[in-house]
Each structure stands twice: as structure tokens, then as C-alpha cells.
């Protein structure tokens, strides 16, 4: 058995080398290390951070593959040559579109991670495993690769490394990347030209004088925000045969992934459940306002407000955000009670932003980022409850 011994010898010989973390990242990918316990408990449970993160990536894979089919499906449909959803044509088109996004995301992101690990002399941490897979799934398929690269560098450096790396960041790095794209390159992140593969190119050709039909593919949220009619059925929304960011469209697969994460105890069921409750509550409030006649059809908020409350769970990035982003343990509330409050407010604020800010119809990204900022505050008050209980105990004694 040569490989194990050879790798071991390389590690032992180069213990003091600067580049060792880069080698270790590959080494530990192949083999769990031969490290034994030195202090405290002599035995340890089977889980480590790599396993934890891998579970989330595993849960993302179905969404990714579905995204490839859907990208192709939406493209051919918009260009007037529709194909079967589960066809090789659709998949291959999507595959060739999305693979570069994945490569750019991982190569650039991990490059930055390895660089920081080498400079700061620590191991390469696993956080980017998940972030790197999330990023291609939450951007429009036609996003230029250089933009993605710039955003990834920004997200990893400013979103994470400046705070000290995995475990120390305040904001979810994947959402920082998306928010960066959103505010730096808004024309590539919203509107009706970015959600269908090839639509932006076609628009450019038309602008250059080509005599072609313009291609447009609006997301459901985009249509609602402009008061247009929605052309998709509820079952399309649920199963995800709709335009949108690569991985966010299939609520069905996201639901399965959510169940997987809850069963494996990797994702917090408290956050997922309370987010859904929060969204339903906000949706019901808006439905109530419409039913009470406080708002007329002329209002620009009317169509989103009157959207049935449970449709909000199916459209846009809500489900994806709640299952994969809100549950990031580092940036979420860390106490069990805090998780309920944190999740509820994410759901509540997502729908609030969605309805009242038609310029940014995707509320879930902003809601999660906002609650990321407030999570430590929520935890502070939850923990203070425990502290007060302890003080009270003392007072009862001394009184």
C-alpha cells in the first residue's frame, strides 16, 4: 500500500514548510488524519466539519442537476424550439452553462482560502465547500464569469476572511457574494433578460442591429412586482419549471433537501420551521389587508399583496434561502430559543421586502443578511435570560 505511506512521508518531511496547509487540504481530502486525542476526552464522535459540510453539498446536488435541466428547458422554450424537460438537449445546454460557474466559484474561492491559510498558517477550513456550491445556484445563469470571480473574491475576503475565517464571519459569505453582484451589477441580476440562458446575448445582438425577436423570461416575482399576469401554474412553481436563479426554482427538491438536512441533524429544523411560519404570517396579513379592501387594484403593491400567502413559499428564492442559507450555523442565532426568533423574522421580513420593494423583488437575500446582523443581538438577550435566572436564584437565597 503505497499512497498512504507516501503521503504520510511527504507530510512528515515538510512539517515546517509554508505550503503545507495546501498539501494538507488535499491529503485530508483523501484520508482522515492519523491525529489522536491529546487532552480531555480520549475518544471522539465520528462527525467532523468535513462530514457536516459534505452533507449540505450532497443536499444541494439534486437542485444543481435539476437546475441544469431547467436552464436548458427554459432556453429552448424561450427561443421557440421547446424540448422535453428531461431531455439530453436540455441537460447538455444547462450543463455547459453551469459547469463554468461551478469551476469559477470553486477555483477562485478555494484559491483565496488556500492563500489565506498559507499566509496565516492554518489549515484550509471547509466552509467554502458549501459556499462554493451555493454560489452557482443563486445567480442567474448568464452572469459573466469575470463578475462572478470578482464577487467571489469580495465575498470570501470581506465576508469571511477579514473576520478570521470560517466560524468567525457575521454574514453568510454566499449571500455577500450575491448581494455584491446585486448592487454592483444590477442589470445582470434583475430584469427580464438574465433568467433565460442566451436572452442577454440576444438583446445585445438586437441592440447591434440584428433583426431578431427579443427574448424575455421574467421570474414570477418580477411579473408580480410589475403587476403582470403570471403564466405559470402552481404545480410549475412547486416542481420548478420556471425561470429563476439556477438552483432556486424547484421547491419540491428543496423540500426534500430540507428534510434530509433535518433528519441528519445538520440543518436546524427550528430555523426552517419558524421561517415558514414567519412568511405565512406576513402573507396572511397582506391577504387580510387586501380582503379588508384597504388597498385597491390600482396600487402598485396590489398584485404581490394579493398573492395567496402560501404561494410565497413556492416562488422566488424563499425556500432555497430558508433551507440552505438561513440555517448556516455560523451566521444564524446560536441558541435554540434565538433560532425561533431569528427564523421567524427572516420569513416575516422576506415577504415584507418582497411586497413593498418591487425594485428588489427578492426579499429573502436581504432578510437573511439583515437577520445575520441581528443574530448576535437575539442571542445576547436569550443568554441574558439565563444570566438573570442565575442572579435571581442568588437574590432569593440572600433575601
Amino acid at each position, binding site marked *: 500500500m503505497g499512497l498512504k505511506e507516501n503521503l504520510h512521508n511527504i507530510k512528515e518531511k515538510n512539517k515546517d514548510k509554508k505550503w503545507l496547509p495546501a498539501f494538507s487540504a488535499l491529503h485530508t481530502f483523501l484520508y482522515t488524519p492519523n491525529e489522536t486525542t*491529546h487532552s480531555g476526552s480520549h475518544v471522539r464522535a465520528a462527525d467532523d466539519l468535513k462530514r457536516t459540510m459534505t452533507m449540505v453539498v450532497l443536499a444541494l446536488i439534486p437542485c444543481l442537476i435539476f437546475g441544469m435541466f431547467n436552464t436548458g428547458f427554459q432556453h429552448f422554450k424561450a427561443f421557440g424550439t421547446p424540448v422535453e424537460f428531461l431531455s439530453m438537449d436540455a441537460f447538455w445546454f444547462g450543463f455547459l452553462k453551469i459547469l463554468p460557474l461551478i469551476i469559477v466559484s470553486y477555483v477562485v474561492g478555494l484559491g483565496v482560502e488556500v492563500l489565506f491559510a498559507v499566509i496565516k498558517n492554518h489549515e484550509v477550513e471547509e466552509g467554502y465547500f458549501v459556499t462554493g456550491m451555493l454560489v452557482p445556484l443563486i445567480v442567474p445563469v448568464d452572469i459573466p464569469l469575470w463578475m462572478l470571480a470578482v464577487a467571489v473574491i469580495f465575498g470570501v475576503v470581506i465576508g469571511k476572511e477579514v473576520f478570521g475565517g470560517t466560524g468567525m464571519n457575521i454574514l453568510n459569505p454566499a449571500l455577500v457574494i450575491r448581494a455584491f453582484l446585486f448592487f454592483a451589477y444590477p442589470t445582470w441580476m434583475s430584469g427580464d433578460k438574465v433568467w433565460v440562458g442566451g436572452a442577454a446575448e440576444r438583446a445585445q445582438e438586437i441592440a447591434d442591429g440584428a433583426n431578431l425577436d427579443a427574448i424575455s423570461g421574467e421570474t414570477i416575482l418580477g411579473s408580480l412586482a410589475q403587476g403582470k399576469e403570471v403564466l405559470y401554474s402552481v404545480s410549475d412553481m412547486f416542481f420548478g419549471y420556471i425561470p429563476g436563479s439556477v438552483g432556486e426554482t424547484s421547491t419540491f427538491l428543496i423540500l426534500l433537501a430540507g428534510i434530509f438536512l433535518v433528519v441528519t441533524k445538520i440543518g436546524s429544523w427550528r430555523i426552517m420551521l419558524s421561517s415558514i411560519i414567519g412568511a405565512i404570517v406576513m402573507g396572511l396579513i397582506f391577504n387580510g389587508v387586501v380582503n379588508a379592501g384597504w388597498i385597491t387594484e390600482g396600487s402598485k403593491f396590489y398584485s404581490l399583496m394579493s398573492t395567496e400567502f402560501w404561494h410565497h413559499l413556492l416562488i422566488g428564492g424563499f425556500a432555497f434561502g430558508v433551507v440552505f442559507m438561513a440555517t448556516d450555523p455560523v451566521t444564524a442565532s446560536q441558541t435554540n430559543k434565538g433560532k425561533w426568533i431569528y427564523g421567524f423574522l427572516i420569513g416575516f421580513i422576506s415577504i415584507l421586502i418582497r411586497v413593498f420593494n418591487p425594485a428588489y423583488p427578492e426579499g429573502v437575500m436581504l432578510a437573511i443578511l439583515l437577520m445575520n446582523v441581528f443574530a448576535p443581538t437575539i442571542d445576547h438577550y436569550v443568554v441574558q435570560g439565563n444570566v438573570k435566572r442565575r442572579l435571581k436564584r442568588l437574590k432569593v437565597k440572600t433575601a
Partner: protein
Amino acid sequence: MSQDIQIKKGLDIKLIGEAEKVTENAKSCSVYTLKPEDFHSIVPKLSIKIGAKLKAGDAVFYNKANEEMKFSSPVSGEVVDIIRGEKRKILAVKIQADKDQEYVDFAVKDPKALKADEIKSLLLASGCWSFIKQRPYDVIANPAKTPKAIFVSGYASAPLAADYDYVLAGKEKELQAALAALSKLTSGEVHVSIGKSSNSPFSGLNNIVLHKVSGPHPSGNVGTQINKIDPINKGEVVWTINPQDLVIIGELLLTGKFNAERIIALAGSSVATPKYYKTIIGASISSLVEGKLKGNNNRIISGNVLTGRTKSLKGSFGFYDTMITVIPEGNDYEMFGWNLPVFNKISTSRALTFSWLFPNKKFDLNTNTNGEHRAFVVTGNYEEVFPLDIYPMQLLKACKYEDLDEMEQLGMYEVAPEDFALTEFVCVSKQPHQEIIRKGLDLMLKEIG
């Protein structure tokens, strides 16, 4: 006012190699060792020189901060070596045992007739004081303070732990004498906890409040019991003592002798035939395990797998320990160990780890960390195995950034490192919880006292 304790949060780590309930005498051991490191935070001053002849119960060293507090030789014999480390710090005192044991005569006492001060000075002079620990700080009790209560856990829930019902059988008289004496040292009660369905020798005794405990480990940890029965507030002190040490104190009162004998369990998957052995505190590890192990890539632990100390064959049995565990070392690589399904290790998640499917399976765990050290990432999993009314991760972090106020507010006075053994076991980031808590307690002891 008996109060039963039921624990829900926790984890029973079921391991192969439970000791069979048969007691043998350990092989004779010629050299016994007393190690100051067993007595955390004590600065020792030697009372003897190399070549001194000692009886069992004669002081070997005393506490620099409190000269009354002696640490006694467990055997009679000759001091053959004093091992020192950096700055002449005393690491170990080695005593060659005599063939026939002689004991210092501390005189037979009637615990009921003794006054609190007399009991204290007897315990201090005989070396038995060292068995009494205090919280906060998990160190040997300060004799100047009166504890609000004394806690004894007569229920061992740790992995493979020696069964107290078995090792204490027939020791009712000694236990009663010790408890009667100790009950005079506290302003409150002596709380003794026993297993819910156990046949404990404690159950018929006087001078105590008996509690029945049920639930997974750490239900048997005295820290868990304190938290559920009468949690420690700022400014309060409680004492804790192990049941087997009560027997030694009881024997001191009843016979006047310091008899440091105890029955220990030799357990673990690397032990050929796990069973109980009668030995004396400070005995050499080799006298207990030699010829009894399987394979030669093992870790010998004085204590249980969660809180014990690593020992070599040349080492000696820890002062407070009641068992030796031997498990295989895990110093090997495992291909794709981080993503393949796992059936042979324990996990509290279900991340392709399947120990949850087999709740009664006994595992053969080794010492591999199963992953590398990382920053705190995952949340909520410590709480599942941590029954105290304390936020474990927040307290650990407070210890790491050494915020004394926050440590105090979050309950640092109530905890000992052993309370964090299970959170350490399940920690995905492989953080050294017990070490962090120990350092935090030491810092508080130094700064607040």
C-alpha cells in the same frame, strides 16, 4: 426532602470491554508513586528526604499555602526517588514499599462524638483532606470555608465505569462513619445520589439526603446532580467526594489507619479479560495491566475514556481514579473517512453515521480525533448532551477570550472540566473543551480566588 433526578439530555457511550464482576488482587507492586499533579493548584512542599522511612499515613509533602494540609504516603516504606522538573518543580515521589505494611496510628474515633474542628484537623493531618474537592474551581477544598452542602455521587454513568454498588458492597460501616463525620462540616445537607434501580449500600444510611438518579451520562456526574439539586451561586461553596474515598475516611475513623486500598475496574476493548482488581493508590500501571492487554498499540488511561489521563506502563495509577481503561490508539489514516458511511463509531448526528440505528450496540472506539481542529461552527449539538442549565458554547467562548465577568454570569462557578467531557466528545470542531474550562477555572481562581 428526597428529590429524584431525571436527566434527558446526555449520551451513554457504550463501549466493548466492561469489567466482569470478579475481584482479584493486583500483582504485587514494589514502588508506589505520589504525584503532585493529581492535586490541581496545590504547590507542594516536601516533608521528607530521599531515604526517609515512612509508615502509611505519614506526610510526604504539604500544601505550601496551608501547612496543615498533608499529603500522605499510601504505603509504608522508603522514599527512593524524588523526580523534579523545570525550576525544581516536584513531579513525583517514589516510595519502595515494605513487605509488611505499618500504619500511622491516628487513634480510633467515634465520629458522632467529634467536633467539626477535630474532624477537620484529623482529615488534614492524615492526608484524607485531599479527597475532598470543592466547587467552584474543582480543586481540593479550602478548609477555612464552610460548604453549603456536600455532594457524593454513588452512581457511575461514565463509559465502562466501575460499578459503585459492586465495589462498595459490604462497606456500609465505613461509609456511615465518614458521612456522619462529614455531615458536621457543612451548614447544609450531605446529598448522596444513587442509581434509580440500584442496590446501593448508601440506601440505608443516616445523616444523608438520598437522591435517585436516572437517565444517560452525565447523570452520574456530581456536577449534574449539584445543578439539579442545589446549584451553586456566587459566593457559595460545595464539596464533593468520591464514594471509594469515603471508605478510606471511614476506615481512618473506625481503625485509626490510613488504608489507601481500593477496588478498581480494568476495562476497555484492549483488555483481554476485563475485571476488578484490588490495589493501592499510587500503584504502578504495569502491576495492573502487564500481561493483560491485547496488541501493543494501546492507550492506557487512568480513569474513564472521557476524563482520564494517559499513562505509560511506567506510570502510576491516579490518586482519584477508580478505573483503568485501555483502548486501541487511532494513529492511522482512514481513506475518505470524512464522507463514507460510518457504522463503527458513535455519533449524535445522522450524517451518514448510523450509530442511532443501533442504540444498544457496544462500540470499539479508538483514540483518533476523527477530524481536525476547527473554529466553533456547528451550534445546538452541545445542548443535546449537556443537561446543566448553562449555555455551553457561550461559556467556552467566554473562557477563550478570558472575560471574567461573563464567565461568572454564565455559570462558571458551577462547572468542572468533567462536565464538558460529552460536549467535547460530540464537538464537530474538535475543540479541547475540558482544557478550555480548566484554564478558565484557573484564571478565575487566580484573579478572584
